[in-house]
């Protein structure tokens, strides 16, 4: 193992956990990554030194809390190359970010006869939020089918972008397929028809450099708990003109300018969308996670290590008879693989693997439509991060062979 990888591992105490007396092999990173020590350290430090409500009081602890919270917003803006802090809404996660946009669209944009265009490979967060928006507004959802290879074809996207489409919402990378969608091309196609685009970046941001200005997307959503950071925190990037146009989903707290019983005016963005007391200390603690993610993705050794992991994983999965990968292996893949195995239920496989110390995800993975396209019974998923090792893949491959033997 390259020394840079052991240095990285040393920053994640959870990787030394043992389960059932065995070394933990954590391959469920796409659900939640392990947390950087600098994040937990900062969380506990701030809960002593800066635990006071933000944006409100004049006293020193409150100013400190506000300062660390706002500097985390700056860090998030920098991380995705957003023009400024007013483009960055701090939410409780990807789900609440998407719901915020969907709700805003339902109230301000969508009407009967309008369409919301999504892909077949979306997480429930990017399906159900739009279903709720359609229930409210009378609009309808149209679904772009994905190819058998798991790819989203641009000509299909183009053919479905008719004049009734009011927004296109797609994943940067699907949490089931692990394949990067051609979002830059999709965005420019949609813009050529005056359709705004929301990108669900929950998985994409973890493995891909994201520059929202270069992409020109209208919205980009992600969660920090998948990105070495705190739980209960997410980011909604939005173009200023859109954030200004959309009404807030929640009311109360600090998101107002003036309140009278007859009329309330809202605070400027982004605070308009941050009603109530946010999860401010956790949000403040995302900064080291974002810095860490930005740094390792530039490191050549880390990049080489990630490719080696993928090559090895693809080789190992390819050796197993009766294993079917959802989506093809290609250059646009991230180290995330979902598969079915003939005659074996994914719950059984995951349960036995767990007893062997290997954590994988199984079932419908909050993306029932695309999972069922590949297997009625659900799929098993392994998802890796640069702190994972080739040795762990060996342990997994061996455990998987044993599991299959036990279950057949």
């Amino acid at each position: 193992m390259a020394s840079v990888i052991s240095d990285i591992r040393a920053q994640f105490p959870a990787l030394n956990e043992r389960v059932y007396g065995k070394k933990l092999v954590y391959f469920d990173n796409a659900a939640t990554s392990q947390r950087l020590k600098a994040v937990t350290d900062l969380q506990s430090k701030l809960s002593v030194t800066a635990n006071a409500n933000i944006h409100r009081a004049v006293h020193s602890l409150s100013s400190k809390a506000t300062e660390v919270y706002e500097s985390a917003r700056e860090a998030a803006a920098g991380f995705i190359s957003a023009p400024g802090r007013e483009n960055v809404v701090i939410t409780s996660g990807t789900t609440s970010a998407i719901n915020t946009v969907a709700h805003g669209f339902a109230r301000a944009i969508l009407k009967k006869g309008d369409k919301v265009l999504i892909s077949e490979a979306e997480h429930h967060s990017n399906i159900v939020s739009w279903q709720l928006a359609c229930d409210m507004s009378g609009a309808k959802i149209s679904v772009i089918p994905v190819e058998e290879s798991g790819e989203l074809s641009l000509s299909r996207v183009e053919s479905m972008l008719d004049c009734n489409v009011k927004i296109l919402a797609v994943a940067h990378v699907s949490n089931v397929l692990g394949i990067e969608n051609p979002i830059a091309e999709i965005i420019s196609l949609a813009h050529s028809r005056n359709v705004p685009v929301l990108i669900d970046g929950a998985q994409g941001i973890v493995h891909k450099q994201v520059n929202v200005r270069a992409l020109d997307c209208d919205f980009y959503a992600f969660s920090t708990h998948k990105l070495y950071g705190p739980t209960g925190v997410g980011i909604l990037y939005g173009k200023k003109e859109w954030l200004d146009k959309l009404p807030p989903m929640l009311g109360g707290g600090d998101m107002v300018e003036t309140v009278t019983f007859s009329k309330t005016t809202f605070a400027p963005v982004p605070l308009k969308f941050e009603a109530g007391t946010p999860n401010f200390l956790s949000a403040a603690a995302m900064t080291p996670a974002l810095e860490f993610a930005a740094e390792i993705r530039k490191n050549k050794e880390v990049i080489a290590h990630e490719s080696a992991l993928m090559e090895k994983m693809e080789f190992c999965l390819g050796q197993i008879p009766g294993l079917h990968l959802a989506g093809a292996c290609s250059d646009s893949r991230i180290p995330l693989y979902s598969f079915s195995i003939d005659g074996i239920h994914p719950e059984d496989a995951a349960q036995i693997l767990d007893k062997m110390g290997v954590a994988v995800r199984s079932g419908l993975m909050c993306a029932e439509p695309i999972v069922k396209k590949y297997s009625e019974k659900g799929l098993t998923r392994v998802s890796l991060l640069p702190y994972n090792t080739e040795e762990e893949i060996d342990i997994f491959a061996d455990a998987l062979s044993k599991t299959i033997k036990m279950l057949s």
Partner: protein
Amino acid sequence: MEIKEIQNEIIEEFSAFDEWLDKYEYLIDLGKTLPQIDEKKKTEDNLIKGCQSRVWLDCRMEDGLLYFTADSDAIITKGIISLLIRVFNGQKPDDILHSDLSFLETIGLKENLSPTRANGLVSMIKQIMNYSLAYKEKGCQNGREC
């Protein structure tokens, strides 16, 4: 055999294994040997709600005793249901309704299942109890002692 005796037998069998992996291996073997259910019985009505994997459970009464058949698309689930069937097959509805199920805790099954599977186990037991109650009431209506 009485329900309690069968349960004690199962407790003894499980105590032979130290590792949970071995217990799983045993459950998987039980799953593999679970007698086939009549395909016609795999109906929507017989499908148990609340399990992540699909489980069908059918029940019939003969001479006042209940007999269960079941199937699942997951083998560990099949093993679990086969344990339950072994305990309850050929028993009177009333005995099933009044049985003590603490053997599931004694063998450590409950805490060693994933939360979704543990919920599934509860749903399976509930379904067995529902059948027992239904047959008990039917038996009473037919003028039988119950």
